[in-house]
């Protein structure tokens, strides 16, 4: 059992989204966890992949980001088309 080969990094990185979304079978998740326990590179990839998602979200959509007023000429253009 201990000699069983580890999954390759290609497999871990290829199915990272399914792993993070909890979509893997328990057996497959076990194999992913076993790989991650001995592969710092895949752990770094997983963490930076998650950070990428968070960065995309916060830099475009965070509630604390200020919202600039829409230009008056645009408002007028929209209203003139409707009226």
């Amino acid at each position, binding site marked *: 059992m201990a000699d069983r080969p580890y999954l*390759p990094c290609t497999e871990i*990185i290829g199915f990272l989204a399914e792993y993070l979304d909890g979509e893997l079978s328990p057996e497959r998740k076990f194999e992913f966890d076993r790989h991650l326990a001995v592969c710092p*590179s895949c752990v770094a990839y997983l963490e930076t992949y998650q950070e990428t998602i968070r960065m*995309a979200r916060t830099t*475009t959509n965070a509630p604390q980001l*200020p*919202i600039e007023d829409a230009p008056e000429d645009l408002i007028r253009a*929209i*209203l003139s088309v*409707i009226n």
Partner: protein
Amino acid sequence: MFMDTTSRQESIGGDNLVARLRSGDGGAFETLVRTQSPVLLRVARRFMHSEEDARDALQDAFVSAYKSIRSFEETAQISTWLHRIVVNACLMKLRTQRRHPEEDIEKYLPKFLEDGHQVESSVPWCETAETVLQRTELCGLVRRCIEQLPDTYRIVLLLRDIEELSTEEVAKMLGVTSNAVKIRLHRGRQALRTLLDPHMREIA
């Protein structure tokens, strides 16, 4: 002048705006355009490649909303309804101006050796989403990197990770399978990660 999202939501609630809109009250529609345009323009800017296209999409969306106000269900939030109309207007516009040929995403995907290991080992980043948010130049960098993604992947990433729509909703909007959405999302995230990697490593 700036206003946060909460203030804007409050500014259109309270009175019977929907009834006034349905009765063809021009003043009510002007209120809607004035209060919602800032938030919705920001949404359109995320999707479109130019300011002009973002403005055009917003205008198309308001025209569409004006024509279909009777189909709006009062149980829904009007801001949510408008948000969806703007996203659809952007998708329609992007469909007509899709760049051909689109840039190949392969160059942004991780490379592997024959034994299955990564060609270049991944390393942790110094920055987090929280630290990036506090630095204007890094926020701009992330947005520019998203903009750099090929549209096929960028659009799915925007709809899933930023608009936070479900895989099924995105599949329906784009007319593709759920599996295609999952593949595009994963590749889009991987490509964005590759683009961010050198900047997030270097800046301590």
